[in-house]
């Protein structure tokens, strides 16, 4: 139950063999099979072979040498099945590897498998997967299983249950931060464009951002540093300057200068009043206050700020994201790859398309495609997509204004509630969307944000107490290093009781 940076040191010092590490990981994966974190687990003999190769080599300098990592099944991995948790790509084996995954492999890490997720990254529960739901390792009692969050629920659950030391997911409206919160681990979403999207099966192109799950902020810096950097295959990818690269070294420097009680002297933290909605439970409001107190103890100045267009964020997101998704999913037509209708009947071209796509896509995906098509249709465009783009600009400007006025970071809850039961049914399909209320505005603005587990809940929530509660820290665009430093500071002070191995029982 070590952190990535700790096991990495042991590997580099040859205090522990990579083969041991991988063996332990494989055992844990086997034990945690009921959680359904993985869609594809890589062949154990080949993983052990990779481990042995590293143990036998002279060179252990690579950044993530020997570290077992999980990869969300939305990333293309060469010759390894990539499904996006959909029947549409059930047997799809890509001929190339996504850039960020390749960089992780090149850093010496060992990919243990492809993690489970909401189908095509659409959802915040990981229930919509064609391969069955993912179960939150914090709730293994039969009949009381909880959702790990989504859409990158498998990655979050894998890291929380020690099936890997880190995992990557993708965050479009909160799909890394929210499951991190529900699983009590660190979930980091850099600025849009910071990490390459090449090879990430697209959901909403202007929102998709690769994200990182780990058990500590220090771990996050190590993984982030291995992935960051411009990729010319992705036209929206940006250069990393000294404010958003080498985050591990920057954090080490910050740690060396850190004096408890004055770590955040002179730092202004904004608390957005519009996020303090009536629906926010007392548990979460108290958590928020607790976080504010922790930061004040470190010398930060807490300032109330206003982000007036917050209340339009969900509507804006749920127009833009499905619109782009409906377009990105046009390519799944059963002709070049993926699911194709099997029939002896002679179909017209339209029938062929309709049947292949209706069979291949699940309900939520179909719902979003229809929503998206509606928002882009000629008669609705101006009132929906057109307006949403304008609103998005206003939301961005809200944050710009706050950061320009001297605020360095914003602190909010990550989710409105602790992780809820899998069996909970919503009265209408869009109710689930309310889970994203705190993460979505930040996605629309393209800002970097991190979700940190702060403490375990005291009150009973849907039959369980001691559930993980998290807060979200947001910074200005391209200030990842500073954000991670402050996050570390908060993490130190919060001293969260992480999920113990013993607590994961079936």
């Amino acid at each position, binding site marked *: 139950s070590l952190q990535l940076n700790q096991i990495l040191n042991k590997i580099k010092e040859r205090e522990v063999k990579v083969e041991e590490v991988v063996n332990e990981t494989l055992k844990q994966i086997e034990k945690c099979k009921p959680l359904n974190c993985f869609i594809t687990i890589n062949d154990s003999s080949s993983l052990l072979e990779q481990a042995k190769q590293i143990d036998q080599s002279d060179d252990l300098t690579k950044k993530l040498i020997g570290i077992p990592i999980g990869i969300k099944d939305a*990333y*293309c991995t060469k010759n390894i099945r*990539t499904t*996006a948790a959909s029947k549409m*790509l059930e047997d*799809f084996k*890509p*001929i*190339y590897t*996504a850039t960020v995954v390749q960089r992780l492999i090149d850093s010496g890490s060992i990919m243990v498998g492809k993690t489970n997720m909401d189908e095509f990254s659409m959802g915040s529960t990981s229930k919509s997967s064609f391969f069955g739901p993912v179960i939150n390792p914090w709730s293994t009692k039969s009949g009381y299983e909880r959702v790990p969050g989504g859409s990158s629920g498998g990655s979050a659950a894998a890291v929380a249950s020690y099936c890997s030391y880190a995992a990557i997911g993708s965050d479009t409206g909160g799909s890394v931060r929210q499951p991190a919160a529900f699983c009590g681990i660190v979930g980091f979403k850099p600025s849009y464009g910071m990490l390459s*999207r*090449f*090879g*990430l*099966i*697209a959901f*909403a*192109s*202007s929102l998709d951002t690769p994200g990182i799950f780990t058990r500590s902020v220090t771990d996050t810096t190590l993984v982030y540093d291995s992935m960051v950097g411009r990729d*010319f*295959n*992705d*036209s*929206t990818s940006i250069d990393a300057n000294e404010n958003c690269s080498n985050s591990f070294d920057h954090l080490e420097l910050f740690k060396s200068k850190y004096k408890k009680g004055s770590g955040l002297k002179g730092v202004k933290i904004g608390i957005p009043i519009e996020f303090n909605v009536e629906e926010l439970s007392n548990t979460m409001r108290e958590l928020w206050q607790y976080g504010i107190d922790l930061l004040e103890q470190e010398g930060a100045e807490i300032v109330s700020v206003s982000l007036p267009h917050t209340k339009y964020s969900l509507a804006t997101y749920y127009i833009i994201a499905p*619109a*782009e998704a409906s*377009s990105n999913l*046009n*390519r799944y*037509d059963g*002709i*070049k*790859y993926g699911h194709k209708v099997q029939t002896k009947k002679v179909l017209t*071209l*339209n029938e062929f*398309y309709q049947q292949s796509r209706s069979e291949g896509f699940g309900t939520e995906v179909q719902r979003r495609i229809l929503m998206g*098509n509606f928002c*882009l*249709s*000629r008669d609705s*465009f101006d009132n929906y*997509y057109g307006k949403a783009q304008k609103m998005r600009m206003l939301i961005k400007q809200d944050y710009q204004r706050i950061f320009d006025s001297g605020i360095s970071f914003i602190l909010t809850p990550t989710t409105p509630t602790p992780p809820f039961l899998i069996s909970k049914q919503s009265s209408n399909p869009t109710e689930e969307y309310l889970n994203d209320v705190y993460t979505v505005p930040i996605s629309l603005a393209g800002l970097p944000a991190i979700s940190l587990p702060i403490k375990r809940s005291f009150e009973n929530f849907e039959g369980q107490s001691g559930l993980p509660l998290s807060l979200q820290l947001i910074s200005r665009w391209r200030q990842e290093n500073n954000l991670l430093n402050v996050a570390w500071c908060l993490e130190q002070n919060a001293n969260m009781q992480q999920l113990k191995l013993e607590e994961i029982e079936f």
Partner: protein
Amino acid sequence: MYRNLNIFRSYSTSWESVIGVEIHAQIKTTTKLFSNAPNSFASLPNTLVSLMDCSYPGSLPSLNTRCVSLAIKTGIALNCKVNKKSYFERKHYFFPDLPSGYQITQQSIPLLINGHLTITMPDYEKTIRIQQIKLEQDSGKTLSDIDRDLSMIDLNRAGTGLMEIVTEPDLSSSNEVAIFIKNVIGILQTVGSCDCNMDQGSLRCDVNVSVKRKGGKDGTRCEIKNLNSIKFITKAIEFEVQRQIKIIEENEIVTQETRFYDASKDITYFLRSKENFVDYKYFFEPDLLPLEISENEINSLKNRLPELPQLKRERFILQYKLNNFEANLLVEDNFYSNFFEQCLGLKRCPTKIANWIINILFRLLPNRRECTLTPFQFCFLFDLYENKKITIDQVKFVIKLIIEGNKEPIEDIVENFNSQSNYQNLNFFCEEVISNYPEQVAKFKSGNINIINFLVGKAVKK
């Protein structure tokens, strides 16, 4: 006969044709518009396809800036304004040869707008306005004639860069359209942005045709597609104009349609109605940044433009004393204007060279686009002729040999030719022998065939 009568009738009621043209020109770059797959014609099917071109999951577009430069140069040559910030958009529809289910194109703010081109007709000049030039992807090809039950999809062409050049409906006759397209071709070839090979499909034209009575209100447009030669374009326009006039004169209504041209029957036929319009759901392409061009870049491209056909034509007339007709023909194809000027090296007479190219070379070439004769070879023959060492028939004969594939050095061809088949001299000697030996000739004529050997012997001696 019926057609001619109609023309007669239409002149008497003063009908006007209103025609607009949409030219799709494939941009001549080594790779495609958003992918690094090679851009080439006639490769084995589906061998020039990158991840982006078959819309593989996780693939992303990456702009080929050379396409942008060539498009801007083309636009400047057509007097367009460059939009310093233009946007790519997605145009959605489902078809097997469109792998993404959308085409990346430009819609609301294209790269180039508000251009014009002045064409020179026999009796007048006319300025045709260019509404816009936009960058977009070409689709793949659907082939339905290889297998009876299957449609074959070849994605080699998918993703190739296209410039779509759209005119205002300023053209009024099939002749104007022909001249206009030829002029555009001249410009595209000179700029080097397209090789304008209509047979191979690197240049495709659609026309929008409507008719109206002089002074009357505008008619309904019909779009004609599938026109892959200038000859077919003119014929299709002529047929369509007559078709629409006939409909209106019979008090019927012309419906807005898309039509195809059938060359074998010389008719246009209905393909699909334009009334059930397709909603393409355009929105800005989120995977690409807005296309931004600086003033400096525009000026740099402008300065690198070669001499355009219009100016070249004027210069040929002024500098080389060619007439309009000659200048037009030579300037039409970059290859021949260069050929012509290369031949002028050693103070050869320009009008004579022009005459030779137009009246000898062009007439001997089965396809003007494929000329294997070099200026050096051409001039070699020209100089021989000027020095009276060779006849015009001999010139044509040698040119034909070279066009048909003879790869020997031209000096050798001419020498062999001179020694083996010196028709004129031979003719002369034979005539002499025949007149000197009348008895032998008489004997030959009355049946003594062998006497020919005697006569031949005498000729050879000469």
